[in-house]
């Protein structure tokens, strides 16, 4: 089930809210109820693989509990199992195909379905075990609490990835106040309309661009339009999901960490990753980079390379993702080695030029991210510099630009403009925003009833 669906809004959410409200005073029953709802939420889309998911929860709960008596090896074993499951379901087919191709073998493995959100919930499970192993947190004796931490439906499928220590106390005690509930609703409504109206609107341009690419009809103008649209689409889509997750979290009494901070305003590639998918960067920092030694022992760049290749691979079993992560790693290492952030900070012009370079680099790397394979990515990049400005067929880039101009403009405003706190915190802004969000909710529902919708991009990861 996804948040931007009529089933979620009009069937699942009312039941979840009523149940949570009625059980406010009974924390154990409340957690059990939310765990059940989360498993139902998952089973709606993955009726078979929910069993695998439940097994993962039980293994990690049991491992956390057993570490006190049996030692840390149980935790290590649990992490190996978590990663093993992830490797089997997400990477095995890709790996076998690679071996077959490289060694001209004919190894056959049944294609396994990719469980939705496996990368996200596996990382949360590892976070729990690691925090217990490093004694940052105590093992939770109650399997319901561990289950709820791993499976909590708002962030189950596409994050933000919540570290166990961030939420440990809230599992035992949390309160929903009227202001926090209101904030949650506003945040959810904002994400909902952002996804339905903007992200899905951008998807129309992007899908057309890649359709034209596959039929060899893509001209330069449409290629640029498609690139810009994809830059907006992926941000609107993913940040909308995070907004909805954070909003829902507040409605149910949880504080879920922020995941985005105007990433396209980044002054460098390193800065971009401090603003984009923040919870993933922090996870890799805390659970991979630092355990590898971080910037000690003179292995900084080696450790960075590992982290960035893993970041690429985390997004999907494909060489394009691996390369995408690798290139980011390289750019980060260059920036670190030459201290570029400090140097560009000293000159306004260089700062702006480097900001533009960063944005262009991010845009170009999104092509690699979106394309099905290298060949398609190269073809797309060639189209960007092609002399054939117009497409071959009847699909004109100017028509798409003309039709989607307001959506594009809104995406640009949301991506590049940061309003002063004074305005944002003013009563008229907050009040009119609330009313606008309610109106946008009805508009978004009308888009869903009309049937203009596509799934979240980060469901694939």
């Amino acid at each position: 089930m996804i948040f931007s669906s009529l089933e979620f809004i009009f069937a699942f959410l009312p039941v979840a809210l009523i149940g949570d409200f009625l059980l406010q005073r009974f924390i154990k029953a409340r957690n059990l109820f939310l765990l059940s709802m989360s498993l139902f939420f998952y089973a709606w889309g993955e009726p078979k693989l929910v069993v695998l998911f439940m097994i993962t929860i039980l293994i990690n709960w049991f491992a956390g509990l057993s570490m006190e008596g049996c030692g840390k090896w149980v935790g290590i074993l649990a992490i190996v199992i978590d990663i093993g499951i992830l490797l089997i379901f997400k990477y095995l087919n890709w790996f076998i195909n690679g071996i077959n191709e490289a060694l001209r073998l004919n190894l056959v493995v049944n294609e396994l379905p990719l469980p939705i959100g496996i990368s996200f919930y596996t990382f949360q499970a590892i976070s729990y075990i690691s925090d217990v192993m490093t004694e940052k947190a105590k093992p939770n004796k109650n399997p319901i609490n561990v289950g709820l931490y791993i499976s909590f439906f708002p962030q189950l499928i596409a994050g933000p990835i919540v570290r166990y220590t961030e939420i440990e106390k809230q599992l035992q005690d949390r309160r929903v106040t009227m202001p926090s509930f209101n904030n949650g609703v506003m945040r959810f409504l904002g994400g909902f309309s952002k996804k339905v109206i903007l992200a899905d609107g951008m998807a129309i341009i992007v899908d057309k661009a890649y359709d034209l690419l596959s039929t060899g009809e893509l001209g330069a103008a449409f290629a640029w339009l498609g690139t810009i649209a994809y830059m907006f689409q992926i941000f609107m889509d993913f940040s909308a999901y995070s907004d909805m997750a954070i909003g829902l979290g507040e409605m149910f009494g949880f504080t879920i960490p922020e995941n985005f901070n105007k990433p396209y305003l980044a002054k460098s590639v390193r800065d971009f990753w401090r603003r984009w998918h923040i919870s993933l960067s922090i996870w890799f920092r805390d659970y991979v980079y630092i355990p590898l030694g971080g910037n000690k022992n003179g292995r900084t760049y080696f450790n960075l390379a590992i982290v960035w290749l893993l970041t690429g691979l985390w997004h999907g079993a494909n060489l394009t993702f691996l390369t995408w992560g690798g290139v980011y790693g390289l750019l980060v290492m260059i920036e670190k080695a030459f201290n570029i952030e400090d140097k560009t900070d000293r000159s306004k012009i260089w700062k702006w030029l480097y900001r533009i370079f960063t944005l262009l680099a991010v845009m170009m790397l999104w092509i690699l991210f979106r394309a099905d394979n290298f060949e398609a990515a190269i073809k797309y990049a060639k189209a960007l510099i092609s002399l054939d400005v117009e497409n071959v067929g009847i699909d004109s880039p100017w028509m798409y630009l003309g039709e989607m101009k307001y959506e594009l403009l809104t995406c640009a405003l949301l991506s590049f403009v940061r309003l002063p706190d004074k305005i944002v915190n003013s009563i008229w802004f907050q009040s009119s925003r609330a009313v606008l969000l309610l109106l946008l909710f009805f508009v978004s529902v009308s888009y869903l009833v009309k049937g203009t919708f596509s799934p979240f991009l980060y469901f694939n990861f």
Partner: protein
Amino acid sequence: MPFYQKKVGEMIITTAVSLAFIIYIMISFVLMLVNVNAPKKDAVTNYLSNDIQAHDEYINIYGMIQRGLGKKAIEDFTIFKTNYGKLTSVCEKKDVSEIKTAVSNILPIFAYCEGEEIPCVYLTGLLPAGEDALPYEESDYSHLNAELLKNELDENGINVFDLRNMVSANQDEMFYYTDHHWTTATSFSAFQIIVESISEYIESDVHYADIDKYEKMIIPNAFLGSYGIKVGKYYAGKDSFQVLIPKGDTLFKFESYDNIGNLSMTKSGAWIDALMDQSILDNPNYNNKYNAWLNTQAVENRIINENVDNNTKILLISHSYGRPLAQYMALCFKEVRILDPQKGRFTGNYIEYIENFEPDIVLFLGEFEGEIIGIYDTSVNDKISQMGEDRLETSEMLKNLEDYLLPVDEEEKIDFANINVDDHQFFAYCLKAECSMGNRNKINELTKYLLDHSDEDRDGIPGWGLLFEWDAFSDGSVNPVGQVYAIKVANVLDAFMDALNSGVLDEELRRQMIDITHQVTMNWNENYYTQENDTGKSFFWYSTSASDDIECINISAKMAGVFARVISTCSDEFSEEEKGLVYDNIDACIDRLLELAITDGELVTWDYLSRNSTTNDCIHHAFILEGLQDYQLYRGKSVSYNVPDLNEYIKKCTEDGYIYSTPDHLSYRCFDTDAVRWIGDREIEAEILLNSYDRYFNRETDIRQMAFLFNAFAFLEYDKQY
């Protein structure tokens, strides 16, 4: 204003908004609980997609927003608003080869008529806005395509009436603004021109060709057509709907037939009473007024004018544009019949129809925006051309069918990417055929394909169905692409059991297939089976859609037979409890089936649906016989009939070496040649199959039929059944 006052003010507004949101979703939830008829995923999804409260208002809001944003293109850039406000679609440029193929598909109709000296006239379409009226200088090749098409028709010597040059309405009055159809004024104008032009060939009464003989009825701002319905009235506006009602006494008889030739409606009376659904015109909430023409019926309609002095018979082969045209033409001639060639509508053979009806003239109006649309079965010519030639051996026919249906790549593996079929059943029949032939590789490949494509609706539950949208019972509930249907499931499971018995399945595949078979069997028995003690109904649903919770007798029979076979073949996979459930269901289904049998002497038949007495055609009769036979064989229980003796109905559907849908309508072909197996006379069966080969082979539009034939031939060649 003090800080705390600001905060309180803000709090009041955000709380009001939050409450409004919560109250709205709670009300919607309660309405859903009240309206959803079954607590199932599909039922919830269907309700929210199609019947959610204020559905039409939401569409109107959507359209209003699009209008506010100044959008000129809707539906993913497939429909455009012209500079004068009409909604219209645009066309890609057609290849010459596509145009030649389209013309060659209808050519036999003209050739046959020429041979029989029946005038046959091709009426061109009219074209909506040209490129000049489109936004963003959008290209539209419909005018060019229409020109290329006309050249091709001319080259083939077809008699073309080019309505484009004759109908004199202004461009902005020619079509509805919210719909793709001609306006009534355009239809009437076309009618006048056609009647005048064809008077040289046939006897006609031109009294009603004069517009002064009509009264105008205009329903203002009442019509939201096919384009407008997608974006609502605030974007598209609404058209006025006009009907020109003939003055004076008129008396008509109207008959409508469904796509297996059953009479589905009769009416008689004055022109408007007999031919138009006036409840649609009177209902202010019914948007698509165009449906009122010919009482919403769209497969085969017959209009008999009881007051006219001539005996002229007209056959109009036309898509929906011809419906008002047929109504007006009926005023001038004794009988007008209209056949709609669009997919899912008239499926009979056009040559045979003309042969039986013997019209005085045939009018063809199948062009839409420069393209001939529809499916035309004209294969009598194939039969005539091949009858005199030496027939191939059946083994060669079988090989030809296999090569055509299951092309292979360089590695001799089935090239699924090049098989253009939108029905899983196709692969099931191919698998059955390959099982008869014992072809190990293809059995494994086809089984794997069906397993890999067992969840096209992506609900995580395996099943098989159709890869196109379909309104199975024409009740407005359109099932989406990938919807699972019982008959497809039954035939796939049947094929799986054949594959299992063949003993050549790879172990892993065999295991996977058994697991899926188990899941599918239990899913249907637990979720898509209805037993009503008050009405006595016991049946499996027609599809997994809640709106198809309908007792369709042959479906239950076929499912009962297949589930009996599954339990018998994979007995170890089912717990005693599961077997008990399945047996209870299928026993009740068969008991119910036997209760519903209609006996007339030796002839035993069933209705198609229990809720009304619609005749079963021989395809579905054969499904019932298959179900009964499998039930007896695998459940080990006898029924009160000797199943092979129930074939009388199928025998009556055969004539001169061909098999037809029903005994009464011998121009409607039966496409499932598998039914032939029940005739019981080897010579007749073989003759029908050989003729069917001549009829269907190498015809892309008949690829599904060829799969039935492939299976039947495989039986013939390998099982020596014939």
